[in-house]
């Protein structure tokens, strides 16, 4: 029994080390897509410059930018402040756009998918609109 626990423990430790190392580069989508993503790209850079943030996903659509950040484990105690700070930073850069910042895992995953699809030009504008509504709901919960 004890051995089993020990193994679990080791597994957990190693597992989390892997996760910590994988702070991947954000995907810059550029302007030549279905929708111009330059604002989103810049937002990513702004957010990533925050030291609490490991990874970031962002997509813009019409007047909105959705940003999802992954925060360092020990900064997760202060998610509220981090969200506020990130929001202010982007808002300063683009005062006329609606900025939504989330730290939710689900939003992060959904935006990641959307980014990929936009990057590879696999998605049409109407479909994005549909997805947009869904992601907005996730941000609220």
């Amino acid at each position, binding site marked *: 029994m004890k051995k089993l626990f020990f193994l679990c423990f080791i597994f957990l430790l190693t597992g989390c080390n892997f996760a910590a190392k994988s702070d991947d580069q954000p995907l810059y989508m550029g302007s030549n897509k279905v929708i111009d993503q330059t604002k989103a790209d810049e937002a990513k850079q702004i957010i990533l410059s925050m030291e609490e943030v490991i990874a970031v996903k962002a997509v813009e659509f019409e007047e909105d930018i959705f940003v999802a950040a992954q925060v360092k484990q020990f900064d*997760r*105690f202060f998610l509220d402040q981090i969200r506020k700070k990130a929001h202010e930073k982007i808002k300063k850069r683009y005062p006329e756009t609606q900025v939504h910042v989330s730290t939710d895992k689900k939003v992060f995953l959904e935006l990641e998918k959307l980014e990929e699809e936009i990057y590879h030009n696999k998605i049409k504008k109407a479909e994005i609109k549909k997805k947009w509504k869904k992601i907005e709901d996730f941000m609220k919960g």
Partner: protein
Amino acid sequence: MIFFWAFIIGGIICVIGQVLMDVVKLTPAHTMSTLVVSGAILDGLGLYEPLIDFAGAGATIPITSFGNALVHGALAEAERHGLVGVITGIFEVTSAGISAAIIFGFLAALVFKPKG
């Protein structure tokens, strides 16, 4: 990473429960009630939500989160409807846990016999 901290924080909350039972010599029912009340108070002080952000299920699975969720439901409803909302909203968030326990518990009583 979140898995690791879920394990650690969940474990620590259980150790607090164990200390209440073994050192303070509370009965299990007293221990659980104490933990639920402390969960409610921690949320009142705004400390439980950050813990959930930090440890995920490590903070939502222990019974302390039950107190937290009760306060949350009450506060959310109070924001919309004023003081009456405190009463109407208490079970808003926790209904899933309680109804699941009642329904599955009842079904279990239909199917199982105590094994001894």
